[in-house]
């Protein structure tokens, strides 16, 4: 049959060759374009790094790119000053607890709810989902005061747990939105056959949904981790000191604080970047797992 189809469709092979040529030609310009974009994209971050390794007197009146002409100016004194600062390690630990804690909570609770909205049936399901997604718009600034009052009544004000719960709650609408949309794409027959075989919902969830939804779950975990790692306003309000609040509190009132801000900010981005790298591999695995049905 294939041969018949090919002999009938004469123009097709011709197009395919031309398309192939185009594709081959097209590869190098794309490589160059992407390389240029990547370099330009990096410039601000390089600027941040250079500002952190140069003494303040050098950057205060000349552009930071001058360092490439005077490499001897580079010094790590800003970093060593930072490490001698007692509050830094405590702040980093607090940041880790908050970021990891709330991400785990969001992923678990979000996946459960996302699956429920995607594949479980119950009355009012669609309207409830709309309601949950509507909560996406609640600006977290406005929940600060009522929540703060509530925390003090419950006696958990100023604790890492209070911040974890707050972040998890605010991460849920997006998590449920994202995961439900991904889970909906899972072929119905897989689920039906599992149900017909008598598997309980929780088993279907653990054995089927989680593995299949791994790319989406990984993406969600990265974003939630990053957003909460770099959050300032929530922790500031609840009296908890992760790295962002610590940097903020180190800003001098009447002097430039670029040395502290740039150095600590650059240090602080190492962890989220490492997390991204780690979860990157999950994308590939998810890809392979998903394509083999």
């Amino acid at each position, binding site marked *: 049959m294939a041969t018949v189809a090919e002999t009938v469709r004469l123009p097709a092979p011709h197009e395919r060759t031309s398309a192939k040529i185009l594709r081959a030609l097209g590869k190098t310009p794309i490589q160059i374009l992407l390389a240029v974009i*990547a370099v330009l994209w990096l410039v601000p*971050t390089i600027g941040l790094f250079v500002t952190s390794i140069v003494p303040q007197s050098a950057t205060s009146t000349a552009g930071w790119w001058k360092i490439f002409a005077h490499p001897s100016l580079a010094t790590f004194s800003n970093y060593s000053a930072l490490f001698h600062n007692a509050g830094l390690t405590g702040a980093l630990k607090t940041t880790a607890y908050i970021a990891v804690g709330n991400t785990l909570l969001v992923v678990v609770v979000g996946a459960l709810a996302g699956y429920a909205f995607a594949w479980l049936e119950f009355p009012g399901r669609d309207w409830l989902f709309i309601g949950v997604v509507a909560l996406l718009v*609640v600006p977290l600034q406005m929940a600060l005061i009522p929540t703060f009052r509530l925390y003090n009544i419950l006696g958990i004000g100023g604790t890492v747990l209070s911040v974890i719960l707050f972040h998890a709650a605010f991460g849920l609408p997006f998590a449920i939105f994202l995961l439900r949309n991904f889970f909906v794409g899972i072929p119905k027959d897989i689920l039906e056959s599992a149900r017909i075989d*008598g598997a309980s919902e929780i088993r279907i969830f653990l054995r089927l949904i989680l593995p299949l939804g791994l790319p989406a779950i990984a993406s969600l975990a990265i*974003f939630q981790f990053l957003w909460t790692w770099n959050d300032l306003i929530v922790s500031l309000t609840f009296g908890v000191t992760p790295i962002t609040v610590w940097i903020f509190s180190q800003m001098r009132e009447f002097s430039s604080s670029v040395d502290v801000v*740039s150095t600590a900010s650059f240090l602080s*981005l190492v962890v989220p970047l490492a997390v991204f790298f780690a979860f990157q591999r999950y994308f590939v695995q998810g890809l392979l797992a998903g394509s083999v049905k």
Partner: protein
Amino acid sequence: MTDASITAEPPLRAAPPGPAPGRGPSRYRAGALFLLPAFVLLGVWLLYPTVYTIVRSFFGPSGYLGGWVGIDNYKTLFTTSSLVTAIKNSAIWVAVVPAFVTAIGLIFAVLIERIRWSVAFKTIIFLPMAISAFATGVTWRIMYQQDPSQGAINALGRTVSDAVTAPGVLPSAVPSTGLLQSQGGGLILKTPLHPGGVALLGLTGIAPADLPTGSKQAVKPATKPGDIVGTVWRDFKPGGGKPGVVEQGELGIPGVTVELHDASGNVVQSTKTDGPGTFDFTRVPAGTYQAGIGAATFAKPFGGYSWLGPSLITPSLLIAYIWIWAGFSMVVIAAGLAAMPRDVLEAARTDGASEWQVFRRVTVPLLAPVLSVVFITMIINVLKVFDIVLALAPESAQANSSTIALAMWRTAFSGSFDFGTGSAIAVFLFLLVIPVLALNIRRFRREA
């Protein structure tokens, strides 16, 4: 997978007498259980504060004791100019950012499928998401500085601009006396000159370090019959000195092109000054002349755009914000692309469709749910924009760059600590997003 369920019901029965395995109350129970933790978190941290805020917006600044003010807070919202600006700015943000971020993310996601170093590229584009919005604001603020010797972007602009039109030798010089007046971008000495005359062109506003090399003590040249001579010099010595008089301690300016204008204004001769600043127009025919310095000498170097000024501050913020979020868009869309069934694409290609047609007719429609997730998330994020405006915009531009979320925070948490109006702004924000949600809901219902 128990034996009991296999023997219980045949799978294809339409309306089983009892609940089918997995349907009915047991499924409802599962649903309730799965949703319980989410509903607790959402109820306490999102629903309750929302209701609290809506109620609070109808009360005065000092709380319930302040008394009911009805819709006064909302009236304030639409009549205060700073808040109206914030609304306008937020509208710009919503119109520009989500579209750009989604489009850029889509383009990147598609392009990186063709390169082998996609992980490296993804990391680089995603990197800004790892940096706190505050640090990003500080970084871009430094880059946007107007002075080209400080701000990276204007430095690039200067390199380009100076390559096109070289700056003059004396960009900041001004005349030292009223005898020298500006004309057409340059300077001209108003006193009429005749052959054998002397023209003194004194300039100030030049730092000694900025004098061209070879500058020496200025000299007033002796008159030469038939020639017009003169000096261009830095008419300043510590304390000021006498303007218009060449004094000891004042330096001449070499390398300046001096022009001789005839009575009708045409340039008949031009010459350059030497070390002491003197020049000599030789063999000048009889007549009345004026001496001047052309505009090219005073051409100012590229001054830099005011990226942080009131008019450009919002575009500057948009660029920085897109720089951060393009990575998010790219990663989510790439995940969507990865999950796309390959056979549909292959089938389209086998049918003879070109790459562009495959992209437009197959890829994009299949990606629609993912694209809408990104688009909608960005709309909502954009309405919440806060940290970056605070850190990037200098105080002088804060009013012009204000957004709704920032205005709300300022009203409630600083300045007047007015929770009533702050709550009203928050409710307004909420109302704004509802049309967006309605759109998405409609699509969702259509899918189902």
